[in-house]
């Protein structure tokens, strides 16, 4: 079922926290489903033998799986057409068993060059130890 958490992004101001999204631990099934659904069949994410030979010890999650979670953190509250930009840097590898929580903060509410009021939202994804896996920013246009 969809969460019924309420958050009015149109009223958000700089330094407001964005509601967090917590995901269950990443399992090998999570990675297999993402491999098939995404079309990214890189064996590094699903084939433990390949990942060991590549020097990574074990499979690692697709960075885009984590970015997918971060995207959900936005679209839970923002109609997707309002999202203008979404940028991330992958800083640490996500591994089997990691529990990803996405958090965010509005960093600015400002008027863009075209006159639209926009929000800049910093979004990060961290594991259960607080290690930041991915750091990102989204630009969201507010209704006129």
């Amino acid at each position, binding site marked *: 079922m969809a969460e019924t958490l309420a958050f009015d992004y149109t009223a958000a101001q700089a330094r407001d926290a964005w509601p967090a999204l917590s995901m269950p631990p990443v399992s090998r099934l999570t990675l297999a489903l993402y491999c098939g659904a*995404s079309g990214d069949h890189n064996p590094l994410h699903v084939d433990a033998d390949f990942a060991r030979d590549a020097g990574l010890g074990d499979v690692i999650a697709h960075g885009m799986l984590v970015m997918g979670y971060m995207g959900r953190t936005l679209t839970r509250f923002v109609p997707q057409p309002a999202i203008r930009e979404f940028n991330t840097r992958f800083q640490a590898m996500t591994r089997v068993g990691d529990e990803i929580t996405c958090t965010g903060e509005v960093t600015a509410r400002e008027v863009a060059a075209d006159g639209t009021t926009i929000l800049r939202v910093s979004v990060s994804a961290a594991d259960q130890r607080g290690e930041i896996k991915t750091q990102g920013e989204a630009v969201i246009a507010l209704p006129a």
Partner: protein
Amino acid sequence: MIDHRHIGYVSPPFTTPVERGRLKFFAKAIGETDPVYLDEAAAQAAGHPSLPVPPTFFFCLEMDRAEPYGWFDDLGIELPKVLHGAQGFRYHRMAYAGDELTFDSRVTDIYDKKGGLLEFVVQDNRISNQRGELVAEFTRTLVIRHG
């Protein structure tokens, strides 16, 4: 080292349909619970003509090429050494199930850090729909680890 003459490398043009079942599978894979991304009627009730392509799925559609890693071979990039360093999207209009999206993909930068221990390859993608309208752009930055 990756030859910097590959800056400007263009992948073969690629067009792919956006399939409804695939969008539902992707929604499941990222744990989606919002019915707008799962249920055609809910999407339409929210004002969409069909299931929307979610923000990060454009990246995935580009990998539906027959040889998604063909450009790695052409540039001399070894798959086991590759990590995804950064990813950025710029959105211009929505795309939906039933659309046909065309990807124009080009390598725009190659550089290295730490005396060549890390190499970076930047690829820009422009995505247009069956009406020729620009839908989105994305930039993928790959990191190639040596040693």
